[in-house]
């Protein structure tokens, strides 16, 4: 299992700013290991963000996202105490879910 995501959600005006830092190698499939064998592609390809369980944002990623991907976006309406959930699935089918409370 991969490391937990770091999610920060802060109220700003009537909305909130959400920052997510995921822990993932995001292999492109182009790199070769020490023995010269290609390292197969392995990256997060589907990401979804929810607010109190309702869909907010979804992303599909190729291997061009940086290692340990970062995402920042803004919510129009949010209040302290609302729950932000982030789910991702990678190309091997591994998935991870983390949540944070808007503060």
């Amino acid at each position, binding site marked *: 299992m991969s490391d937990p995501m770091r999610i920060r959600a802060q109220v700003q005006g009537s909305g909130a700013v959400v920052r997510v830092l995921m822990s993932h190698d995001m292999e492109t499939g*182009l790199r070769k290991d020490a023995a010269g064998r290609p390292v197969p592609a392995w990256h997060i*390809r589907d990401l979804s963000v929810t*607010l109190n369980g309702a869909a907010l944002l979804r*992303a599909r990623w190729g*291997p*061009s996202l940086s*290692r340990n991907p970062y995402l920042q*976006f803004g919510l*129009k309406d949010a209040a302290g105490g609302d729950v932000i959930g982030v789910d991702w*699935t990678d190309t091997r089918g591994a998935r991870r879910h983390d949540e944070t409370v808007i503060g």
Partner: protein
Amino acid sequence: MQTRRDLLARSAALAALLAAGAAAPARAQSGGWNQAAFETKSVDESLKALGLAKPVESKDIVFTAPDIAENGAVVPIGVSTALPGVKRIAFLVEKNPTTLAGVFEFTDAVETSVKTRIKMGQTSNVLAVAITGDGKVLYAQKEVKVTLGGCGG
């Protein structure tokens, strides 16, 4: 002849299969994952694979990226737009081995603005393509000079 041993092995395999299926919520089935689009090697191919019309350059898309990226493995980019009805934003890197970096889908509850970090193999134009609900395709682009490539090697 069927032995007790391979019967056991088979039922174990079946159980593993069922468990894998049960652990996959329908929502995360990555319905609509467009493998072809993520394998395209030019801007035109990517747009075609995403089913998009030829994009029109727009001043209303604010695209931020560095002029010079010292490390191509981590290039911070951001896009925001006040255009109404933008449902999706795609990032394309013209000269990367695969052009399409990612597609973001927005609901009405979020601002159509996102910041992330991408990898770039070499100096290239980077495009932010915004797609509205009624099918308009607009873009903004910027050239980012890369000192050290970030795509393997």
